[in-house]
């Protein structure tokens, strides 16, 4: 009997021992590799920058040392989401700080502006939130972590037609914002090609104020949905006008919109009840094992819940870190850029990410909705 018990304990101990897969311990070399971070940390878009940086710091806490023992140092530059400031920040990071790579948390406009300079200096730039296809078109050193607007616009149009079964849509766009006009055009093309009707295409200017007359005209044409690839402030003006008119059409926004709304304009969330948006992340969606660990780490570091921006920041750092770690010389920018553009099935927070040699990313998109003031998950599109 005793022998039997001993044998069972012995076998159990072996099973337990074999089951413990300890990661190798890395000793610090004392050296640091610099990674630049450009983003709007002040101004009207500060939610993107600050949340994104929180995500970066979370991922950094999870991966502090490269395999060779080098640490990572962040050099953070605020561009207020203004292209000129972004250009200035890039120059500083290249010439003064000598960073190995840059993660940029700004919109498509600023990223489009720095593309040529990044190519000239052969500086790998990973655009975490810029979805405009031209950010990577004709660029060798700018890569996207997010899906691009061809994918986003197409999915939005198909979602409206096939899931919402809506055929009459009015589109709003801002020609002063490259991202907005491209996405609006892409949506319109796809929607019309599948038999949808664009009741009106509204081109907003920065000085547009009379939303009521615009919306009244749209309402008369029996429009069922408003497609709004706009900034948060513009969408808020439209929502207020709709409330005054007592008209409640379906509304679909684009990436980051609802996150900004619930971060910077939470008091107006009631106006946006039921609004849909294409996005990168939702806390309710299934996460990868890396995503679950990152979420746990994030909660241990910050009081506020993670959002799309922090997720993209975290994934951006993890992917950049992975690329640097795969290079023999962690300061070899050519190699880092090559590795970024050779990322296949990298496990991000919400799913697998692949960055093609042309710098474009393949990653899932989610559709969110505001329900009772909270961001709820609707579907995930691969």
């Amino acid at each position: 009997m005793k022998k039997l018990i001993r044998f069972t304990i012995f076998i159990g101990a072996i099973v337990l021992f074999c089951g413990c897969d300890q990661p190798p311990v890395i000793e610090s070399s004392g050296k640091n590799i610099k990674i630049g971070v450009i983003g709007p940390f002040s101004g009207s878009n500060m939610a993107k920058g600050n949340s994104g940086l929180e995500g970066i710091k979370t991922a950094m806490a999870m991966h502090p040392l490269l395999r060779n023992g080098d640490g990572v140092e962040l050099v953070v530059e605020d561009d207020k989401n203004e292209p000129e400031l972004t250009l200035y920040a890039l120059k500083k990071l290249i010439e003064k700080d000598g960073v190995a790579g840059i993660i940029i948390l700004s919109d498509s406009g600023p990223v489009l502006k720095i593309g040529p300079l990044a190519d000239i200096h052969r500086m790998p730039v990973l655009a975490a939130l810029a979805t405009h296809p031209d950010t990577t078109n004709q660029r060798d050193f700018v890569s996207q972590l997010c899906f691009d607007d061809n994918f986003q616009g197409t999915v939005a149009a198909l979602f409206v037609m096939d899931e919402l079964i809506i055929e009459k849509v009015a589109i709003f766009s801002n020609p002063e914002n490259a991202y907005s006009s491209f996405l609006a055009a892409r949506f319109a093309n796809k929607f019309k090609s599948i038999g949808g009707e664009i009741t009106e295409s509204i081109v907003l200017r920065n000085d547009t104020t009379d939303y009521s007359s615009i919306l009244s005209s749209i309402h008369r044409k029996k429009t069922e949905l408003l497609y709004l690839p706009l900034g948060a402030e513009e969408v808020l003006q439209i929502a207020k006008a709709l409330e005054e008119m007592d008209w409640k059409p379906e509304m679909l926004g684009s990436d980051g919109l609802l996150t900004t709304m619930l971060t910077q304009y939470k008091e107006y969330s009631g106006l946006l009840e039921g609004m849909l948006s294409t996005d990168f992340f939702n806390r309710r969606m299934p996460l990868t094992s890396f995503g679950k660990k990152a979420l746990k780490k994030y909660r241990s570091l910050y009081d506020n819940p993670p959002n799309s921006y922090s997720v993209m920041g975290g994934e951006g750092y993890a992917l950049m870190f992975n690329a640097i770690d795969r290079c023999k010389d962690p300061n070899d920018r050519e190699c880092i850029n090559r590795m970024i553009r050779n990322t296949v099935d990298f496990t991000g927070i919400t799913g697998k990410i692949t960055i093609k040699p042309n710098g474009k990313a393949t990653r899932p998109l989610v559709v969110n909705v505001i329900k009772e003031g909270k961001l709820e998950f609707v579907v995930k599109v691969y």
Partner: protein
Amino acid sequence: MANYVDIALFIYTLETKHLIEPLQENSFGVKITSVAFDVLMEDPENELEGIEHLVVSGSLNVIKEILNFAMKYGFSVGIIPMNTQKDLIKCFALPRNKNEVIDLALRNSSQVMDIILCNQHIMLFQATLGRLPLMDSPSDISKFNIVVKALKRFVGLELALFDFTIANQKKIRTAACGCMIIQRHEGTLASKLISHDSSFTDGMISMLVSAPRSIVEYFIFLSQAIRARADRKKDYSTIGYIKSPWIDIESEKKLTVYVDGDNVTHTPLHCKAIKEAVRVNIGEGLREKSGKSQPVIERVNIDSLPRGKELLRVKTKKIPFFSYASEERFRDLFAALRIDARINATYLMLMLLSTLLATVGLYLDSSSVIIGAMLLAPLMAPIVSLAMGMLRQDEDLSKSSIKKIIIGIAIALMTAALITLIYPYESITSEMAGRLHPSLLDLSVAIISGVAAAYTKSYKEIIQSLAGVAIAVALVPPLAVAGIGIGRWDSHFFSEAFLLFGTNLIGIILAAAFTFRVLGYSPAIKGKRSIAFVLIFFVLISIPLSLSFKRIVEDRLHEKSWQEERFLVNEKYLIVKKAQVQDFRDKKLVTMDILTREPLNRNDLTQFKKKVQTHFARRLIININVIYIP
């Protein structure tokens, strides 16, 4: 109109000296002479000579001393209790208001009462000896406090031998935890448990004897005591009740006797009731009750106490956790189990028929035919016998049971395999598929069924319920599926179905053995080695079952999450409407209903498959049903 005494002697102590003034200034015209108790004790004969009524206020011992004098000199007694003497107030139904209690104490309306002496000590309320679970608790104690007290007291509970002799010279030898002699039992939990035919002048002593044979019985008594109502009497399995003019108590060990809560004497104990010994002014409520007395007879209700051979068993140090089954039940069950363990022609025939029926039912995918086979299957009986054999280390019972089970298994496997060889069509029906993925849930079914099987087997009255158990656990159908696996030479088919049968077998044996132990059919687990062996198998079998259960849970969650997945394939939008995940050998088979607006070509399907395999498991077999959106 109330009638008061003319003269009364007031006996007080230091604590009750303050009552002299209100008593002497009473408005009833009663002339009061006050004497301190210490002064009285210096020359009681002189002080009490010619006294007809005495009012006393002091400690319980002072009151008892006065009652002793009352027996001797024949005066009536009025009692003024102190605020702390709650038992006394309750016992004599005395008012709480000072003026009312003085009023009562001075009245000329005393009630004749018996006095109980325990080893010459006056007992007013109760005397206890040994460990008495709960009965001495107040009746108004909350249910929560009963439970707390009960939990404290069950530790170290033990039975000791007692000899009682009562007035008719009847001698009773039993074992008990303790006894409680009660005079006026109103106000204790014990009062809820005994009959209410006592009166103040019946010349009888009531005694409760507590004898829980096991911790389980003690808790059953606890639940009965909590639910007991004074107006609805019943016999309690752990309580004996004796009512007699006198009782002699002798215990195996010398036990301390607490009279009214004070440690004053020990066993052997002689208690006797002195009929109509004193006259006391009691409260109106009690007077009404005492007036309704009926003729009282001696009572002896000791059916629930250990007697005869049972006394030999109780000589253990502490009471066991589980009770022992009665000899009659024990004899009946063992006879039945030995018959169940024997191989006979009926068993062989039923095994053959039930397997034939199960196999055909599996091929027909017919639940009702399979249920018929379950009812016909005789395999449960030897498994239950084996459980008892292992529990009691009865080698004959174990060996014959094992032999019978093995023969049953062999018949089932061979029969099902033969039918499969004859039957040309190799289909996997849903009834077969349902028996190919055993999980922890099946083990739970086996355990519950094992408990149910042992329980129904133990009680002839509910034996008809065994059919339900047979349906729940379904022993033959998994064997038939395993046999089909042999016939098809498919090891996966065989191993999964046989794992299910093994799960049932192990679960039933362990659960049935445990149940028999709880029901008291074995004082201990004698066959420790055999049970340990089954337990190791239980642990080993739990590993694949846990993994399987985890897989099932994941699959169900996966199926749910699939409904939120969409795919953009060559600019075509695919909506996953429904998904079903199944294990197919070492891969997963996902069957999806896909909604789309445009026709899908081969390239689309290839792209779709690639996307699924990139973002989900690579070892997925994808099966899609395309539904077009009009």
